[in-house]
């Protein structure tokens, strides 16, 4: 089936199975490997991308849902890798193993787009679906606060 979608600002016409998870279209067809496979059941958040700005778990999202819509991955979050969240992630040394960070950052980016100065509770609630096996949650929250321009207490 032919699927038309826009990925990181680039129009794509793909001949793929309509039920193929968006994650595998991104990674295997388009070679955008920044988005990770974690659980395959929408339980860990490693595969998080944006669909028209909304957070979706790409491992369970059939590519047909993206027909005619805009997909943003970690590669497309900023042109130079200097989105405020990416800078904060680097400045604070957030990642340990780093496997979850693309998903964490994509969810945090959607949060800041909707709520530029979120409370700690709002950060925790929005990121509750993004797991970090290394347990870097305090640094993740601090980086979101830093990217939002919220001073540490």
């Amino acid at each position, binding site marked *: 089936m032919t699927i038309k979608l826009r990925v990181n600002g680039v129009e794509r016409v793909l001949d793929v199975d309509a039920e193929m998870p968006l994650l595998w279209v991104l990674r295997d067809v388009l070679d955008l490997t920044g988005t990770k496979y974690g659980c395959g059941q*929408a339980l860990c958040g490693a595969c998080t991308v944006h669909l028209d700005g909304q957070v979706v778990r790409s491992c369970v999202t059939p590519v047909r849902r993206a027909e005619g819509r805009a997909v943003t991955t970690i590669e497309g979050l900023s042109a130079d890798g200097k989105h405020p969240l990416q800078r904060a992630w680097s400045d604070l040394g957030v990642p340990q193993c780093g496997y979850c960070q693309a998903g964490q950052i994509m969810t945090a980016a959607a949060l800041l787009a*909707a709520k530029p100065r979120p409370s700690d509770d709002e950060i925790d609630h*929005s990121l*509750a*679906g993004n797991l970090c096996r290394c347990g870097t949650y305090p640094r993740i929250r601090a980086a979101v606060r830093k990217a939002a321009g919220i001073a540490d207490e």
Partner: protein
Amino acid sequence: MTRVGIRALVVLLLLSCAAPRGADEPRAALPASAPGELRAPTVFAVAFPDRAERSRALFLEAARVFLHPRCKNCHPDGDSPFQGDAPRLHDPPVLRGPEDKGIVGMECASCHQDRNLELARVPGAPTWHLAPRGMAWVGKTPHEICEQIKDPKRNGGRTLAKIVEHNAHDALVGWGWAPGAGRAPAPGSQAVFGSIVQAWVDSGAECPPEEARR
């Protein structure tokens, strides 16, 4: 038994047939419902000649669906839905948000698609979302559910006809009978459920008493 005794018995039997039935007198029993089944409206028409009684009994039958985990789990009384047959809070932790569709980063549609995902076991149906707080069924009696279903202030401004339509044909309601991934479906079928709700409306949309079973 003496002849007088037999006559007395016959008179008593005739009287019992002719006399109006008392409120607490047993009436024609409803046939037992097979597990996982709903009884058809025709059964209630036989068992409950009185229109109002029939209506109340029909709602109790419909309440077997309303209070089934596949249905009430997403009609929570708080901010989070439930999951499973022995309901536990939805995991990952999610919140209903301002439009009952989740919060940014954790929208219902972030994970739930327009159909079930058998391999990933993620349930799905069109417009997956929570019922508004005013339509909570968790912790409610059939009487309370009945009153709120009829209340346009809480039922989304629906008429009784719209309520029948919603229950009989809405795709998200219909998911309750096709939940996928080994989940126990709601009893009966959406078609029979819709006919019960229709019969309830047709018989006056009476609500069962507060003390009726949960």
